[in-house]
């Protein structure tokens, strides 16, 4: 725990984020690029400002990822405790089911319940994001050697201390890998939220589709993909750092 936090893995995603952010504010840049790719198109850009679309997407992703992580880790911890072991099979089955249910159907069914816009989108994305987090939380905690947990108990750790100080830190690399998958899925699936009127980077994609403006669709798709890659890069860096720590597992 006294090892210094390595900054190097975070360098590349940070540079990418700066370039990404700056490109949103340079007037005419996107218009020029898309105009060159689609010289025959009259309309190449979505009407709403790009920083607003990115901001809306980030809000949706942040809310749904936070919920996915909270629910996924919470359930994962619960079913690996002695008092939750009975629910292990039910929880994993339900979460697998959630993953196979078509996202567009979830939106459609959620709208009458939650109204249009932000809330049904976050709801649907949360359901999608839970499985990777849950799965990896269970796998990560399961990979902690029993001798280490046993010695923690034997020395007088409370169950809570064993979880917080031993199990979760040693499972962290695997759990973060799950969070990474969950967030990337969230970013790309969030574009469907535009159907429910949530705005964000899905709006240009849907608008381009509806009005036969391929340049507008491409604008939304490029911005979404780049955002997903940047977040993936950051979480990959965090995972790398966590792996460096739990690599020590093999030797112990």
């Amino acid at each position: 725990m006294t090892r210094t936090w390595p900054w190097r893995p975070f360098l590349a995603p940070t540079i990418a984020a700066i370039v990404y952010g700056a490109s949103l504010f340079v007037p005419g840049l996107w218009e020029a690029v898309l105009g060159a790719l689609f010289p025959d198109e009259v309309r190449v850009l979505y009407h709403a400002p790009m920083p607003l679309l990115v901001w809306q997407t980030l809000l949706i992703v942040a809310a749904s990822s936070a919920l996915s992580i909270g629910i996924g880790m919470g359930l994962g911890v619960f079913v690996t405790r002695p008092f939750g072991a009975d629910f292990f099979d039910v929880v994993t089955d339900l979460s697998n089911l959630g993953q196979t249910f078509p996202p567009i159907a979830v939106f459609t069914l959620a709208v009458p319940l939650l109204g249009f816009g932000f809330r049904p989108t976050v709801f649907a994305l949360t359901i999608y994001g839970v499985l990777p987090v849950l799965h990896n939380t269970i796998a990560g905690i399961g990979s902690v050697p029993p001798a280490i947990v046993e010695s923690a108990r034997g020395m007088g750790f409370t169950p809570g201390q064993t979880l917080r100080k031993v199990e979760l830190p040693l499972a962290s690399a695997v759990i973060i890998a799950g969070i990474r998958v969950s967030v990337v899925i969230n970013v790309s699936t969030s574009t469907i939220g535009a159907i429910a009127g949530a705005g964000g980077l899905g709006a240009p994609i849907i608008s381009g589709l509806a009005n036969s403006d391929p340049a507008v669709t491409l604008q939304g798709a490029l911005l979404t993909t780049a955002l997903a890659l940047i977040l993936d890069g950051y979480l990959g860096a965090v995972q790398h750092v966590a792996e460096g720590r739990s690599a020590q597992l093999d030797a112990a």
Partner: protein
Amino acid sequence: MISFEHVTKRYEVAERPAVDDLTIDVPDAMVTILIGPSGSGKSTTMRMVNRLIEPTSGVVRLGGADVRDLDVEDLRRGIGYAIQGVGLFPHWTVHENVGVVPWLLKWPQPKIDARVRDLLDLVGLEPDVYDGKYPDELSGGEAQRVGVARALAADPPVLLMDEPFGAVDPLTRDRLQAEFTKIQQALRKTVVFVTHDIDEALKLGDRIAIMREGRLVQFDKPECVIAYPADDFVSDFVGSERALKRLSLARVAGVASETATNDWAASVPRSATLREALARILETGEREIGVSDESGNIIGSVGLEDVFAHFERPVE
């Protein structure tokens, strides 16, 4: 300090109890070895002391109190615990690993720091070198030493050790055993030590409890286990070289006779075992050799007759 009163541990799936009506008084300030083949219930027995396993019936007492009446975390923090494969926390430094029980007991940090350094010294690890290392940077032997230091950290009167030297090469194991004996002579803890290695048991134990299929077969001093095995199982378990093992447990000092002459072709120190003396006798071809004190002066002799006589004397 520790006593088992008709303790039985039964698992639903098993046809016979893991531990079957065990009654034993573990003597204070001594090393009591629990030994037996796998499935004999020795580890289960040990884990009932710190309630990692709860008995189905019977009472385990620590200092007179039923362990079930004590707060489970307080109980465990008051008992040193070292296990096979060490169980060091791979994400913590040696310092943090050794200081973990004092940390749980909320000692002030400077006191923990000082204690960790003392303990690393005690187990033969240079504090400045090892303090900040991680378990993956330690050899097997070093990790075992850290494990022992961690068990001793809060100076508990009782130590539970489950094959603590199980995972190292024989040479390192010999050294760790010798150092453990030295530490134990200084600290005089009440130690319950689980092993399946009879040589380790004979070397380290003040008392040996031999278990088989959950039952206590014999509970005795090492010398008595060798000289008077309770049944064929014990005698098989002790092995084919019982006579030599018995010689390993006796010191030359106890059998040497004073002699008029000091002129011997060879000699052994009086702290040597009879087994070492016999080896020396066989090597030199002499029937009798000298015995020297710590400064090398000949103070008596030991011969083949003394070795035979040792076997004729009853062990008490």
